[in-house]
């Protein structure tokens, strides 16, 4: 019973406090808020060990069972242990730890980030295939916005009714009016969904995040 109700009680108390602190600027409340944030960091630090333990166990099992891809698990384990040892014995400000971060991890992350360009190209190719009216509108709008965002966009355009309509101007209109309207519609819906979810947690109606259903099933 404690396993079920205590987390709900914590969620309710801290939920109400975090909601109230937004509207109450009193120093007492601000102090309490900062204390809660500090505790959150401490709890996170403790749970990180859970993550590391899970990682070691997952890859360790794969290695021991010689599953397909066990070699990659071996690389992950060796890298993890080597980085921890480098940090412990040589410090994190310089030495091998810093070298591993700057010469191995950072370039790998940059490589993956760079690959986004190719993924964007392949996704755009699929999206811009003008097979329907919607896809055609997307294709035309996409072309105008892309051309309008480069220097040529100021030169390209047309004159109508004594006024000059450049692609850059049309691109800005597409981004500021129809695009922004749709975006704000989505954001309003998201805001209401967030508040609704938060209120359900505060009111104790939402329990699925604890592995419990309202009817009391489940639980751990």
């Amino acid at each position, binding site marked *: *019973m404690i396993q079920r*109700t205590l987390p*709900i*009680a914590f969620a*309710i108390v801290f939920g*109400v406090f975090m*909601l*109230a602190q*937004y*509207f*109450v*600027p*009193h*120093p007492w409340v601000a102090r309490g808020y900062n204390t809660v944030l500090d505790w959150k960091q401490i*709890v*996170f630090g403790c*749970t*990180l060990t*859970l*993550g*590391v333990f*899970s*990682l070691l*166990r*997952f890859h360790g099992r794969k290695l021991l069972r010689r599953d397909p891809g066990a070699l990659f698990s071996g690389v992950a384990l060796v890298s993890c242990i080597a980085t921890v040892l480098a940090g412990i014995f040589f410090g994190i400000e310089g030495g091998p730890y810093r070298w591993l971060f700057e010469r191995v*991890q950072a370039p790998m*992350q940059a490589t*993956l980030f760079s*690959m*986004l360009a190719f*993924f964007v190209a392949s*996704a*755009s190719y*699929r*999206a811009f295939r003008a097979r329907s009216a919607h896809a055609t509108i997307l294709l035309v709008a996409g072309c105008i916005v892309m051309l309008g965002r480069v220097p040529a966009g100021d030169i390209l355009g047309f004159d109508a009714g004594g006024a000059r309509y450049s692609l850059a101007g049309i691109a800005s209109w597409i981004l500021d009016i129809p695009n922004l309207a749709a*975006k704000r519609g*989505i954001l*309003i*819906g*998201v805001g*209401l*969904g*967030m*508040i*609704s*979810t*938060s*209120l359900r*947690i505060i*009111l*104790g*109606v*939402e*329990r699925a995040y*604890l*592995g419990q*259903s*309202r009817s009391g*099933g489940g639980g*751990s």
Partner: protein
Amino acid sequence: MRRPYNPLMLVRPGSRRHVLLMAAAILLAAAPRATGEEAAADTTAAAARRWFATERLPTFVPLVLFASLVGGFILAARGGRNLFVRRIAGLDAIDEAIGRATEMGRPILFSPGLDEMDQPATVAAINILGQIAEKSASYDHRVSVLNRDPIVMSVAQDVVRSGYLRAGRPDLFREEDVFYVTYSQFGYAAGVAGFMVRTRPAANFFLGHFYAESLVMAETGQATGAIQIAGTDSDAQLPFFITACDYTLIGEELYAASVYLAREPLLLGSLKAQDMAKLLVIIFILLGVAAGFLGVNMDFWAAASGAGG
């Protein structure tokens, strides 16, 4: 059926008394204090010791209105009122995806996004995970959950275990199916992409809050031929998911889906309140547009505080 008395809680969560108490607590905590304190707030130090940030009143009033709507509909649902809730497109695809994975004998992958457990999008994603786990266990199939946050991983383990238990298959649960990848954003993307390429899941679920890594994962899943269902409240990543996935829950649909799938009356009550609030927002927008055309100043708050408008 009467629930057992719980000495740990003064009131039972979800009960009428609990809803009223919580509403009162929120109002009391945030309401302006006595005029005596307000009158004394003419020095900087005293102003810093205010009990209510009056500049946040325009946020407070709609919040109280919306909270009242949610509370009201929850109470109505609790009273046994039958609430009609709109159908959410794309949710049928979840059954289809799980069935396909079962027939093909290939894994089901679930990613709860990159945010932590204190974010509503992650809570919504975890709720949906519970339903997916239950459904897949009823088909005698397991779900693999790849996590970026250790707390989310711990919660996901509990939720998947409970889902299997509800389906009557607790024996299916393996702790190594719900595992931690890394806290690094692109390290996580690489881990998920690698998992997809090696194990070839038949169904991929990307539900939660995502950042730039969304396209890396969705495009890799597309390349491996998986049926993909995404849902995010991150407006910047929605175009990528819509392009690369078979079904996408857009914005608030992610939150609505978690409630819709649970099919519990009290939760449906809050979804109904959400829809009513959207209707109110639409009415206010139309009023604003009409007022704009008629030249009527609707910025009452700025006018009252002398900020112009």
